[in-house]
């Protein structure tokens, strides 16, 4: 077996551990402390923000315009509406500012 193959297998095992690990640890406790629960509730916004923030910093006017439109549309529309609006603005803006 090649090195690549073993990297993929080990990477897959490591990834699956992250996917079940949090649950296996938390489910050992009968009562979840309010602060732990508050922390868990913060997870989605906290993690997803880290996937956006550095990208915003390194972006240009076209990307910023797309993100602003996405944020505005998301106040009213659903996920698909805001995604399509943001993507449309991005493609349009890039024709002009590259």
């Amino acid at each position, binding site marked *: 077996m090649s090195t690549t193959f073993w990297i993929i297998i080990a990477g897959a095992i490591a990834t699956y551990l992250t996917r079940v690990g*949090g649950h296996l640890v*938390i489910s050992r406790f009968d009562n979840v402390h*309010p602060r732990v629960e*508050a922390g868990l509730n913060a997870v989605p916004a906290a993690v997803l923000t880290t996937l956006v923030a550095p990208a915003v910093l390194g972006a240009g006017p076209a990307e910023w315009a797309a993100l602003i439109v996405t*944020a505005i549309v998301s106040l009213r529309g659903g996920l698909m509406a805001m995604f399509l609006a*943001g993507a449309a603005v991005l493609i349009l803006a890039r024709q002009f500012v590259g």
Partner: protein
Amino acid sequence: MSAEAICEGRARSDFWDGVRLSMPVVVASAPFAVLFGALAVDNGFSVLEAFLMSALIFGGASQMVGIELFGQHVAPWLIVLSIFAVNFRHVLYSAGLGRRIAHWPVVQQALGFFIMTDPQYAVSEAKAVSGETVGFAWYLGLGLPVYVFWVIESALGAVFGKLIPDTHALGIDFLLPIYFLGLVMGFRKRPLWLPIVAASAVASIVAYKTVGSPWHVSIGAVAGVLLAVILPPHHSGVGERP
């Protein structure tokens, strides 16, 4: 109609409800799957290896990081560690999702965690918060199309990769941040949303500039979560919820 038939009918319609919700994710991830396949072959993977990586790891950002490091001839253990670091956020998702699917049989839970990625977690969490049960059929509908398309498109990308035209003009490199921003906005009604987003944004940017990618993801996430833990519980609204 028997009770069983009604039950089966409901599971089927739940499944298709999930499939409908999965479509934006399928669309948004398609370019990345194709791009991954193309880049993987470009970095020395075979088509079969690109396919296997998508099928077994099923985590876009970590796969991109993995092949990038592989192309730079980084030590294998460091590549695996980086994949682990990029995917480490799943530990937090896992703890959160586990609360919502505790009523499933263990095998279904094991499968559910295998196909859990950012959007599956976010959409399930949103459903649970609105007071609805997260059922297996619905969750499978949400996750399975994303998985199947991801694997097939990765393989297609690996085979036909060099035919992709100008990806920049099509905005492909920036579709994921747009999509993730939409998910962040979806949680804006939660207690402490703005302080958490601010803390995670600042911490991830600082970490990105100093420690570097992919650690900024874990560091930024921990900053936001810690803020929610440290602030007194009445701010986070945990005690007030039914």
